[in-house]
């Protein structure tokens, strides 16, 4: 086994995990909203990109932009439908509602795109680099750099802008935020749109690496969940570190043990974390 190569693979995989998890982290931190449709939104974004690429003949960047915009709109629609539950913070119902949305998206994608696998061909995936015996593609490079840039951007947004302060205020006490003149409904919509846009960006970055299927998306949710819990809910920096670490773990586990059970192994890590932490896991 080439350790350096696996390390690079792990970094790429981990950046992908972190990228997919970013929107979810913010959403969970700000709105306490668990989005079970996350994986299906990832799937849908990949398919919209694929559709624009192959049926409309757009180039990859344009197709990616179409996918991101479409998901932004979908995010607004979903949040508007749920707004009553979000504002009243009815978390149990919200979870189930997003599960229902996910199932709807899966069915709709099946209707629209059929059940067979497709390849989302990104031109950058064909560009290969080799440095000191370590191989990686242009797509890998893009994944890592865009992920880092997104994390930096989101961190700045949350911690250095008025809008970010509003998001953190609502995460802490949505009722009090109203007294402060903040339209909480609008902030929730914005946050959910951000979630949708970020998962779409993640999809057009990561999905070209594997065949896409309308039934995919479950693994992405599990990995996102592991990343978010290990990194600390709502903790943007923690999610990046956890994502990268999980990627490296996955790469080595796949190389040394079995690639078929990597999700199971990551889940085992999570269970160990949940049971071994002295006071378990608390939201705040």
């Amino acid at each position, binding site marked *: 086994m080439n350790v350096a190569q696996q390390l690079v693979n792990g970094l790429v995989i981990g950046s992908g995990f972190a990228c997919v998890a970013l929107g979810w982290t913010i959403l969970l931190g700000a709105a306490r909203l668990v989005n079970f449709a996350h994986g299906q939104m990832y799937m849908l974004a990949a398919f919209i990109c694929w559709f624009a690429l192959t049926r409309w003949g757009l180039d990859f960047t344009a197709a990616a932009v179409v996918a991101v915009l479409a998901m932004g709109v979908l995010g607004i629609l979903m949040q508007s439908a749920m707004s009553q539950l979000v504002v009243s913070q009815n978390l149990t119902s919200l979870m189930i509602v997003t599960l229902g949305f996910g199932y709807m998206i899966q069915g709709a994608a099946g209707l629209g795109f059929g059940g067979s696998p497709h390849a989302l061909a990104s031109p950058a995936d064909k560009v290969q680099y080799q440095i000191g015996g370590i191989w990686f593609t242009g797509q890998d490079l893009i994944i890592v750099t865009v992920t880092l840039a997104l994390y930096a951007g989101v961190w700045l947004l949350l911690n250095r802008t*008025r809008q970010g*302060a*509003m998001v*953190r*205020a609502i*995460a*802490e*006490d949505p*009722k*009090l*935020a*109203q*007294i*402060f*003149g*903040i*339209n*909480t409904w609008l902030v929730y919509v914005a946050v959910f749109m951000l979630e949708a846009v970020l998962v779409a960006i993640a999809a057009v970055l990561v999905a070209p690496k594997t065949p896409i299927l309308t039934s995919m998306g479950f693994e992405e949710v599990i990995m996102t969940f592991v990343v978010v819990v290990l990194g600390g809910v709502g903790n943007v920096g923690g999610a990046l570190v956890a994502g990268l670490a999980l990627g490296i773990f996955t790469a080595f586990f796949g190389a040394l043990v079995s690639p078929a059970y990597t999700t199971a192994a990551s889940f085992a890590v999570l269970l160990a974390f949940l049971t071994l932490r002295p006071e378990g896991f608390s939201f705040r």
Partner: protein
Amino acid sequence: MNVLDAADLTVRYGGSVALRDATLAVGAGRLVAVAGANGAGKSTLVNACAGWSRGHASIAGDVRLDGRSVARLAAYRRARLGIQCVPEGKNVFGELTVEENFALVPAVPREAGRHVFSREDVLGLFPRLHERRTHKGSALSGGERQMLAIGRALLAGPRILLLDEPSVGLAPRLIFDVLTVVRRLVDDGLAVLLVEQNVSAALDVADELYLIERGRIVGHGDAAAMRQDERIAQAYLGGLAEVEP
């Protein structure tokens, strides 16, 4: 014309009525106090003016701001129009620094009737906050938190300030300071509705007083007149009068 007019406010929590048919008015440059026993409905009244509640309240009745009805507006819209409420209990964001709490305040539109305070004005009123501006809200003392809450309400350009027990948990000296600051703002023309446990202190600074009992307004008058009111003398001032020779 009054700055704030509330007419027939009724507030229900589920099936139980916490406030019934409350009518009150606050004019410009007037400090109006609300007094009553614990659970009488003072906070409910003040919050209803702001269209706000910690629980699931249903609010009926009319609220007018400078003659214009705001009863159908959500709490955040009323806040932006200048009904600035400082609720009791948790009233600043603990996870945000003092600066960030201030930064949340939306820009104040230039309109007649709004009392505009710059950040310098606010820090001039509460110099402590300047020293603590990079501290998180949760790291402030109770008094500092109260100053921050009032400070940010001023920064938001109030037409009227609703203060719910601003002095709770403060040392007597600080209570005096806070109430003096409030009085000064009123003398400059601000309208203030003040809930105060300490009726004696309230009567010292207030122009008018509403007395509220079990969800109903049972008395109203000028501070001087209310001081003579039997019920107030008995329930709130009586004890003091006997202790102090």
